[in-house]
């Protein structure tokens, strides 16, 4: 081991501590003979007393598609828990990831998009993930192979898909180039922020919310609040019209009702059970069941589904939109050997980044056990947490912890909680939560 490698290894030890140490003790060499489950003679490597049960020392190649909240986390924890012989390749189309979480604060100028960017250097350097920038074009679940845009392929022992979502085109629109949904943080978020800044005083911001399930249940209501707060201060007389396809506010109802009816009363006009017949991208007229509504700035949040890649691989088997999975391992119910985590999968858990991170850990742990010929943990727990800014200085929150329910074979809420009130303390707590969550996901 040269000095550089040794330093790197020590850094890995520092970063991963006992997890890797246990595996180091148990694993020993790099025989490369494809040895699978260690039988517990764990003293061989370090020459010390056996200290750990035979959980790992697996070998194989796991390919992860998508380096967002779910994909980055699963790659990291596969390396952390899988030991040195588990190769992990992460394929992501972009050189860095822009967090959706906190991206509503780009709309009121409190955050920049670049402050929400996370690259893959730490996954590569500290965790030994093989990171490939590229677009996955196709999956062959029988040959266990994915093909990339540059014509190359990667074969896998197990595949994890974490590609997020695809957005339906709303009636009347051919793209979201001028009428942004901004529900995937990036250029559309910047465009929407510019449009809001350029909006005349007394103008109207119209947003639409699709029927559940959609990414981040409190997110649209949070956006309505953040925009209302911004308009009050910067565009006197402006209004926010919320056209919600759902029968009522779909998350944190108490907090958002308070926000809509008191804090932002007179600014936010909320309509439940709204239907959108068409949107004219030039005149910005929206035809609805409530009649024709004129917008100065228009923000349609479209219905969502698992991306085409997942559909084309034959993995979409829930409501024609989502990939069904076994929540003990997130293995697809359509194809063995393929796991789907995050927004693209159908579970009883919300489509959110914090829960995608938790799903990724259950999936990583299960894959390590499955590669060792064991069964996944029979009683996994996951948790979801979300802070929702309501103004530029206050927030509410929502959290839930899910335990596996063997009878229904689903993750069932075990305890849930919501902020009792909208406070500046919550707003301040949001940032350490965000920073720790992103560091836990991206290294």
């Amino acid at each position: 081991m040269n000095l550089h490698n040794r330093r790197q290894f020590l850094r890995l030890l520092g970063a991963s501590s006992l997890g890797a140490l246990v595996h180091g003790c148990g694993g020993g060499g790099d025989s490369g003979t494809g040895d699978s489950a260690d039988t517990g003679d764990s003293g061989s490597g370090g020459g010390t007393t056996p200290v750990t049960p035979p959980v790992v020392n697996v070998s194989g190649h796991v390919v992860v598609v998508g380096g967002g909240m779910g994909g980055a986390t699963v790659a990291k924890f596969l390396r952390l828990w899988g030991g040195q012989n588990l190769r992990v390749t992460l394929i992501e189309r972009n050189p860095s990831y822009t967090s959706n979480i906190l991206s509503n604060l780009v709309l009121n100028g409190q955050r920049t998009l670049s402050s929400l960017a996370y690259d893959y250097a730490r996954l590569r350097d500290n965790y030994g993930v093989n990171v490939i920038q590229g677009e996955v074009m196709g999956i062959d679940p029988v040959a266990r192979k994915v093909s990339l845009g540059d014509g190359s392929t990667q074969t896998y022992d197990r595949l994890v898909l974490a590609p997020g979502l695809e957005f339906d085109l709303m009636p009347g629109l051919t793209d979201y180039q001028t009428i942004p949904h901004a529900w995937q943080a990036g250029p559309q978020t910047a465009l929407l922020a510019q449009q809001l800044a350029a909006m005349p005083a007394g103008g109207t911001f119209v947003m639409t919310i699709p029927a559940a399930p959609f990414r981040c249940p409190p997110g649209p209501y949070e956006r309505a609040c953040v925009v209302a707060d911004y308009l009050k201060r910067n565009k006197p007389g402006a209004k926010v019209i919320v056209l919600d396809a759902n029968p009522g506010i779909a998350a944190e109802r108490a907090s958002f009702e308070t926000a809509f009816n008191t804090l932002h009363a007179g600014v936010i006009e909320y309509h439940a059970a709204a239907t959108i017949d068409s949107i004219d991208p030039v005149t910005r007229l929206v035809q609805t069941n409530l009649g024709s509504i004129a917008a100065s700035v228009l923000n349609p949040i479209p219905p969502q589904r698992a991306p085409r890649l997942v559909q084309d691989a034959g993995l979409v088997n829930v409501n024609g939109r989502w990939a069904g999975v076994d929540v003990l391992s997130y293995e697809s119910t359509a194809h063995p050997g393929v796991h789907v985590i995050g927004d693209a999968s159908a579970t009883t858990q919300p489509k959110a980044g914090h829960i995608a991170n938790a799903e990724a850990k259950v999936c990583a742990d299960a894959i390590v056990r499955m590669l060792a010929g064991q069964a996944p943990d029979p009683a996994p727990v996951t948790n979801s947490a979300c802070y929702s800014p309501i103004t530029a200085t206050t927030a509410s929150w929502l959290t839930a912890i899910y335990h596996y329910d063997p009878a229904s074979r689903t993750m069932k809420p075990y305890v849930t909680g919501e902020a009792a009130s909208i406070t500046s303390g919550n707003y301040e707590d949001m940032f350490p939560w965000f920073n720790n969550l992103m560091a836990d996901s991206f290294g």
Partner: protein
Amino acid sequence: MKPRHFTYVLALLGACVLFPVQAVRAESGRLLASNCFQCHGTEGRSQGGIDRLAGMGANKLIGEMKEMRAKTPGNDMMKVHARAYTDAQLNDIAAYFANVR
């Protein structure tokens, strides 16, 4: 990585021998404890702003969790998480963090 390198590094850190009997429980607590990493940092090594759990004594962690459970649900997100694990799960989680150095 060759075995002798592990020997080297482990000898350097004197690490393997530190391993207590609780390793089995700590191992089973790993996946449960990973539910704390999002807020308290990977393996409990917080990035700041929220308490570090890595290396916290098991009795201290269990004591604090039970204290937070007992308080009426208020404004604090952590109180919800304190009520989200059975006593057996909590023991495994505590064993895990106690073993992280």
